[in-house]
């Protein structure tokens, strides 16, 4: 069979992804990121079960610059995945497919995930 140079859709090099598409791939990326983050979650629980000294090592990491950046990133990824996941559930129910609604929901998810992350960290320092 002859090979034709057919156009690919969407052509990622020249096609500017709409915000909804960017949110969709970010949902996947945050999911994978959270997956690697479960290493930290497991370390935390195993360290706590192992005793005060082991837990102190975890606390030292969690309080270091690298640890704080990872935890902050984890918080944002979780916020985004939670909010965008809710939107996916609405889509599953058949709601929110309209172009304008979809774009507004994308903006809300991005803004909401940033706001939620800041609120969580502010609250953690206040309480």
């Amino acid at each position, binding site marked *: 069979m002859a090979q034709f140079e057919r156009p690919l859709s969407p052509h990622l090099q020249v096609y500017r992804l709409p915000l909804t598409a960017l949110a969709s791939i970010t949902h996947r990326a945050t999911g994978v990121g959270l997956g690697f983050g479960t290493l930290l979650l*497991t370390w935390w*629980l195993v360290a*706590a*079960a*192992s005793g005060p000294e082991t837990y102190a090592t975890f606390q030292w990491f969690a309080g270091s610059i690298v640890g704080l950046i990872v935890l902050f990133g984890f918080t944002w990824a*979780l916020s985004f995945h*939670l909010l965008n996941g809710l939107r996916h559930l609405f889509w599953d129910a058949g709601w929110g497919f309209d172009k304008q609604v979809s774009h507004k929901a994308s903006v809300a998810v991005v803004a909401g995930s940033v706001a939620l992350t800041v609120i969580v960290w502010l609250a953690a320092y206040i309480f």
Partner: protein
Amino acid sequence: MASPRHSLRSPLGAVRGLGSAKDGTHHWWLQRVSAIALIPLTIWFVASLVVLAGSPYEVFIGWVAQPLVAVLLGLFVGVGFWHLKLGAQVVIEDYIHAESTKLIVSMLVNFATVVLGAAAIFSILKIAI
């Protein structure tokens, strides 16, 4: 769907609705069920950590040791790893096309989620019991 007269699909196959992968919507549905379960669990988990942040070891251990907390924490970890296993499987199937690599990577992810989940849940139980 085409009328039964023109369809190659048997009436039994149509009723079962499992398709060529013999799994139907099972994987998709479990992903949604685990997602919905994780909404309240995640909110509870993050809210608890906000309150606990900076607490000394003894306070944290005392918190985990409460029966309700231990159960909710165990559910959060268990459902979370289950949701991760389902999600990672879809990502692997979408991006890895070589059959052998796909098999090895998805098996490694399955092993990793079970091992990490078992370690986390055992730790919760060890503290709580």
